[in-house]
């Protein structure tokens, strides 16, 4: 077990390196001189030389990559072109908001999705199954940025119940746990929850209906076990895979929040990324994507470890 753990963690290292290489190369696939793309347009000759030396843009690419990683490990992700502030600080400030949004969305989406999937799998072939499966397909087919707009139209424009944008009254970015702030969270979190809801419902339905068709369930029934007992058995068997699906979905929410944050002007890392794209602020784009991708890699690793811990039979290569 310990050996497996170490192997799995060691396996994540080259992946993390590869992911950072892709992020590093982003600035180099951008059209134009990478130096120009990390500098403000009105930079002086002197400033250019200074940066060229500091960032090692005159050195060969592998050396540049090494230097870049070394600085990134020390928490230096460069400076934003638009604001001149350090990228690491900007991303760090925003990512908390994204995390909060993703956790609320995930909690709601997972609960409803797992419930729908379970009911559909348990009453396979009935109208309950068809209705909840239809809901699940609709969930995965929805362009969620559009759903966000529709919810804003209904709850903000027509009914005027909930605020359309921002994370607090008056566009304040400082979060507090009161109703004034919480009501800003409702619409974006609800919109975001639709993505994992559909996928979790589909996976749980497949899992439950697969488990129900196994012989041990018939044996339990024949033995006279109550439906509640059978439910617990299904839950125990579905948990490892179900939790793995949910873990990955949480990661997708963290990394894919840009569209929803843009619709709701939610001051998270996705919103920051959207601004970086609009202003072609490549250092901010690169740093932001590196941090989000690393979160995802770590989360993947955690999901694998938890899954193995829950079900030691699973040992993925």
């Amino acid at each position, binding site marked *: 077990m310990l050996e497996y753990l170490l192997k799995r963690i060691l396996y994540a290292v080259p*992946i993390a390196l590869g992911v950072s290489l892709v992020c590093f190369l982003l600035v180099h696939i951008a059209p134009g001189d990478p130096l120009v793309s990390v500098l403000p347009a009105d930079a002086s000759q002197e400033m250019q030389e200074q940066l060229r030396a500091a960032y090692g843009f005159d050195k060969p690419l592998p050396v540049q990559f090494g230097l870049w990683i070394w600085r990134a490990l020390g928490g230096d992700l460069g400076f934003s072109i638009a604001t001149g502030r350090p990228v690491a600080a900007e991303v760090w400030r925003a990512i908390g908001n994204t995390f909060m949004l993703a956790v609320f969305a995930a909690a709601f989406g997972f609960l409803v999705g797992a419930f729908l999937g379970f009911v559909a799998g348990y009453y396979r072939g009935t109208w309950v199954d068809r209705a909840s499966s239809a809901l699940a*397909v*609709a969930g995965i087919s929805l362009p969620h940025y*559009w759903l966000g707009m529709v919810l804003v139209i209904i709850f903000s424009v027509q009914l005027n119940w909930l605020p359309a944008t921002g994370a607090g009254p008056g566009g304040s970015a400082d979060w507090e746990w009161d109703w004034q702030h919480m009501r800003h969270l409702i619409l974006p979190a609800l919109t975001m929850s639709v993505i994992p809801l559909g996928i979790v419902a589909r996976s749980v339905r497949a899992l439950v209906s697969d488990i129900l068709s196994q012989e041990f369930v018939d044996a339990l029934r024949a033995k006279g076990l109550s439906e509640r007992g059978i439910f617990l058995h299904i839950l125990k068997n579905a948990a490892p895979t179900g939790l793995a699906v949910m873990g990955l979905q949480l990661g997708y929410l963290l990394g894919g929040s*840009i569209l929803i944050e843009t619709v709701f002007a939610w001051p998270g890392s996705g919103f920051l*990324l959207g601004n970086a794209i*609009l202003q072609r602020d490549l250092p901010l784009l690169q740093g932001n994507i590196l941090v989000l*991708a690393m979160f*995802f890699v770590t989360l993947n690793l955690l999901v694998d470890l938890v899954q193995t811990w829950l079900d030691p039979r699973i040992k993925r290569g």
Partner: protein
Amino acid sequence: MSAASAAVSSEAGQVPVASRGYWSNVLRRLARDKVAMACLAVLVLILLAAIFAPLIAPGDPYRGSIIRRLRPIGTEGYPLGTDELGRDMLTRLIYGGRLSLFMGIVPVLNAFLIGTFLGVVAGYVGGKTNMAIMRTIDVFYAFPSVLLAIAISGALGAGIFNSIVSLTVVFIPPIARVAESVTTQVRNLDFVDAARASGAGALTIIRVHILGNVLGPVFVYATGLVSVSMILASGLSFLGLGTKPPEAEWGLMLNTLRTAIYVQPAVAALPGAMIFVTSICFNLFSDGLRSAMDVKL
């Protein structure tokens, strides 16, 4: 694929009752699936409307009018209203299908070709080649798909071509993974050994036996990605990374109409409804195809 089914039917020829063959069975099952057929009909309708847009659209998708901006649905002469520049919504929605469908299908098609190639090579050759290909693919798989698409598009800059490149890169890893795992399974089956023992070369085995078994499941998987591709491509346009104004594309229209939700909410929501309908039809048709072909992934 044709070679494989020909082999099956020549075998079946020795049995007194000729078998129908795999593909005609699949088509028969698919034809009985009411949901899949209804979705196919809707998709064909949208596709035909997009192809023949100049013939059926009532107006010009680019001609606006300052005095006729943001008319509601049901206005005379503008059955679905007008957009923020006074352009006819019905016309733009019909024209919009062209780019939106194109951006949904082309990246998946590219990724289908490249990903299947990589997966089959990795699975068939094995060893170090497999390691090199599959570990590289793992790296791209380690990004959430939305993030990867936005990262590449954001670095390359806006434009249809750049969006297609970034979405192709997003879809290669999952397709290659499916192709690799099916290839590895098939490669070790007895009939491949038999073919090899009877003197078939590597290319023949790949063409006849491997591809014959791999293309089906990978194709089904790829049809399920078209809706993802459409939503992502529209999302890129929505962020200003895909098509540029004044082009008619559903994602871009949704973006430019965002400011109009206080004036004409129903009109502003129309392009998104089109994306939703098309993508749900692709998903349901893909589900139908999957169960008709009896593919488990």
